[in-house]
């Protein structure tokens, strides 16, 4: 029974996300509105993590398998890229690594820089 309630709460947030997606004019999907709403509900203490803990953990862990059906459906898009699939594939792979490196390095540099500055301040005091 507890898990049914947990699932119900999570589906409610998805549903409200769906409504916002329908009503608001932005190209933002229901799931993104749902994340923001659920986060706010937790932050404002309207909801406790314990009330959705088990089901949310299970859903997050099982996420990769949920991408299989839509990915299998992509065989039909093959027609659209047949002529220059190599260019598409190259850009897709290369930029993924470029972005990962840029975002990772930038974040890490700033974390380390601020950490060192704090140490410096402590020493100066």
């Amino acid at each position, binding site marked *: 029974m507890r898990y049914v309630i947990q699932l119900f709460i999570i589906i409610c947030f998805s549903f409200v996300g769906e409504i916002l997606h329908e009503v608001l004019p932005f190209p933002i999907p229901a799931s993104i509105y749902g*994340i923001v709403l659920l986060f706010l509900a937790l932050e404002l203490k309207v909801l406790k993590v314990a009330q959705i803990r088990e089901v949310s953990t299970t859903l997050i862990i099982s996420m990769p398998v949920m991408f*299989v059906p839509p990915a299998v459906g992509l065989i039909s898009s093959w027609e659209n890229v047949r002529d220059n699939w190599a260019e598409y594939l190259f850009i897709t792979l290369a930029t993924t690594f470029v972005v990962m490196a840029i975002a990772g390095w930038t974040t890490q540099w700033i974390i380390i820089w601020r950490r060192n500055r704090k140490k410096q301040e402590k020493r100066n005091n």
Partner: protein
Amino acid sequence: METIMHNFLAESVYMGVILTLGTYCMGLWLKKITGWALVNPLLVSILLSIAFLWATDTSYESYSEGANVISYLLTPATVCLAVPLYEQIEHLKRNYHAVATGITAGVLGSMTSILGMVLLLGMDHQAYVTLLPKSITTAIGMGVSEELGGNVPVTILVIVITGITGNIFAEKFLRFVKVNEPIAKGIAIGSASHVIGTAKAMEMGQTEGAMSSLAIVTSGVLTVITASLFAQLA
């Protein structure tokens, strides 16, 4: 006999679910016995499912009728990413500058590198706007591509390939480029390979997963705002 079998596969409600979960379990098992990063359960499952449908001449429609039960859970599962985000919010507050700058750099880096490569390879404007939203989550990316006049099915294809690439190589690649702060790892994965990459980040750790979730939301929204400006550059 063969037609009976064929009709049964086409009509069965559970066939799609069995195929999806079965091939995924095979992927998990193969990963366990080989230990190779390339033997990714998600990738194994996709390829085996396609091969099975092709070999048995079963249509995608009859497969997806059952299998959609699984992908139906995608939105609720994505919504649940708010939980790790909430639990790790202190990390975020303490590293606000680093996180905000990192995600912005990722979004600009993504679009700039796509622009550069499209010009280099001499691809046309439509190919360019089709690729622009490739690093963000599918549902937002589709909207951006459509608005800019891209080829939406191709956008979905490159988004999924981007995610799988991140899911498979993120751990090794980040070690290779010496990104070892958990916060930076999470931001890198979420910015580069959205939800599919985040599934990997969740396996790597609580902080990685939470920061990756945050990067999906933020980079998605940032891309919506900046993509139309970038679209005018090629």
